[in-house]
């Protein structure tokens, strides 16, 4: 459990944030630029001090202004991967990696040098200098350096912000591997919702220095506060399920989600593997009667639980066998179907339009697919 309750007031920016998130897990701090994400992370790291408040990791108190307690940053054992990497330019990659390791001799050993090098694919980079690395490589080395300091918590402040979009795939699979194989709690700062969907288990939504909402990713994906930030195109329920049937010939996989079964396009996830998928609201069709003769692979009976309206149309929340799915329909469609909470309706969406990804957290379950691909 990571508990944070802090106040820090400055003329330009004030932060007043509280959250409590399960750890281990990946806690995403999500919000627009200037919402206070980096300030919050710096407070957790101990690089900034709050005017008042407390920060607690498990049973350890890191900051408690009432008790006059503040563990210095260098004694917190909290790893930090900065937006810009911040590798030491006068040291080789190997020496950068060993910097924290050398200073963590007293700490319980989580991971060793060879293991980090193998996990992050750094073999070829060890003799290089930071200026000889690409943006993605810099962040992988920074990640390795932070891990080797044997942290109890890993802070990642938009680690992909300075990495070109296509190059982000050089880093993201490693972050997934980290989540699924090591039990180090992580705080992941981002304003890219795709990254959050891929990585996070818990979401803290920040706006103007305050926590707007917090909860598991599944819960939060249904919240209107989140929809306002991610925009109409990215709105959609995030569901976690496990593989019940693999159809290798057709490249589809059946997933048990709640009490129902969904069919999605997904290759490489073995039977029993846990998978996360996002069903975008704009890809979901609602029908009052069962429909025949359609190519749509998923047609599930459900109940309307909520209907909201905004400038982009109506957003209908459906309870489909215990799982919640969002559907975006036009105002005209809503008027024609006359949907209101409690009504029964069929929820249809295509197997190819859902994004499924291996998501094997908490560890112990089988890793699905090869995270490094």
């Amino acid at each position, binding site marked *: 459990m990571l508990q944070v309750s802090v106040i820090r007031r400055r003329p330009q920016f004030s932060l007043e944030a509280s959250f409590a998130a399960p750890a281990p897990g990946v806690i995403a701090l999500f919000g627009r630029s200037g919402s206070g994400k980096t300030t919050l992370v710096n407070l957790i*790291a*101990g*690089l900034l001090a709050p005017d008042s408040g407390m920060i607690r990791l498990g049973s350890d108190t890191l900051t408690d202004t009432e008790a006059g307690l503040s563990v*210095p*940053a*260098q*004694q*917190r*054992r*909290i*790893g*930090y991967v*900065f937006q*810009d990497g*911040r590798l*030491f*330019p*006068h*040291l080789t990659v190997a020496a950068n990696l060993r*910097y*924290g390791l050398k*200073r*963590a001799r007293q700490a319980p050993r989580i991971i060793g040098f060879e293991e980090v090098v193998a996990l992050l694919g750094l073999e070829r980079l060890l003799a290089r*200098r*930071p*200026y000889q690395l690409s943006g993605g490589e810099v962040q992988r080395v920074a990640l390795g*350096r*932070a891990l080797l*300091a044997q942290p109890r918590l890993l802070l990642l402040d938009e680690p992909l912000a300075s990495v070109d979009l296509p190059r982000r795939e050089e880093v993201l699979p490693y972050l997934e591997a980290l989540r699924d194989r090591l039990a180090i709690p992580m705080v992941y700062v981002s304003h890219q919702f795709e990254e959050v969907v891929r990585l996070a288990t818990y979401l803290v939504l920040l706006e103007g220095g305050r926590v707007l909402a917090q909860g598991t990713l599944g819960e939060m994906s249904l919240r209107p506060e989140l929809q306002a930030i991610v925009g109409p195109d990215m709105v959609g329920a995030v569901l976690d399920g496990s593989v019940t049937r693999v159809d290798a010939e057709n490249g589809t996989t059946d997933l048990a989600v709640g009490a129902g079964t969904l069919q999605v396009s997904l290759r490489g996830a073995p039977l029993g593997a846990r998978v996360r998928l996002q069903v975008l609201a704009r890809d979901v069709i609602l029908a009052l009667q069962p429909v025949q003769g359609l190519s749509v692979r998923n047609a599930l009976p459900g109940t309307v639980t909520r209907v909201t309206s905004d400038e982009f149309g109506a957003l209908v929340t459906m309870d489909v066998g215990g799982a919640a799915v969002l559907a975006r329909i036009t105002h005209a469609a809503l008027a024609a179907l006359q949907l209101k909470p409690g009504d029964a309706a069929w929820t249809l969406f295509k197997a190819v339009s859902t994004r499924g990804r291996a998501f094997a957290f908490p560890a112990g379950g089988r890793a699905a697919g090869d995270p490094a691909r």
Partner: protein
Amino acid sequence: MNGLLGPPELEALRLSLAVATRSVLFSLPLAVLAAWVLARVRLPGRWLLDALVHLPLVLPPVAVGYVLLLLFGARGALGGWLHAHFGIQLAFTTAGAALATAVITFPLMVRAIRLSVENIDRGLEDAARTLGAGALDRFLSVTLPLMLPGVLAGAVLAFAAGLGEFGAVITFAANIPGVTRTLPLALYTAMQSPSGDALALRLALLSFALGLLGVLAAELLVRRVRHLIGRP
């Protein structure tokens, strides 16, 4: 002219090198400290320290030499104490010439080093902190190596300038052949002598060559070291 450098030139050159070397060795640690404090520490009286460090730059060197004489002379407060307790005499000695040179070149050195401190990304020190490095550890493992180009530039520049310090040296350490008669003092003496024209010219050329060499060496060294610390 048989041989470019005769005994008087060699003697002056040797003394100049000895004085400049000692002055750099003496002032470097202090200059690193002063530069770091000026660049990083938010002290209430920092402007005063800043002014004090830069004072020798604007004062007449003769005045600096005179103040040193008052302080470190045989009857000066510090001079008397040093002589009584350690048997050290500074006024009218080679060591004294080095002290006078150090005081004059100090601002030059501090400026070069301070610039390099201000160029260091403080985020690197924060990163070191999160990796478990305490204050002294951070300074030695991150800040100091990254300051190195500035430290070297400052040292070489102060050395080159130190070869030619005149006013403070002649006031505090006098013009004693073989002890404090460095290149500029020898040049001045030669100019005063009716038959010293040729010697004066050779000493002037020698000073010129040394200065040029010093400035070039500083540039070259800084480039090498910048590369060494990964700033191509």
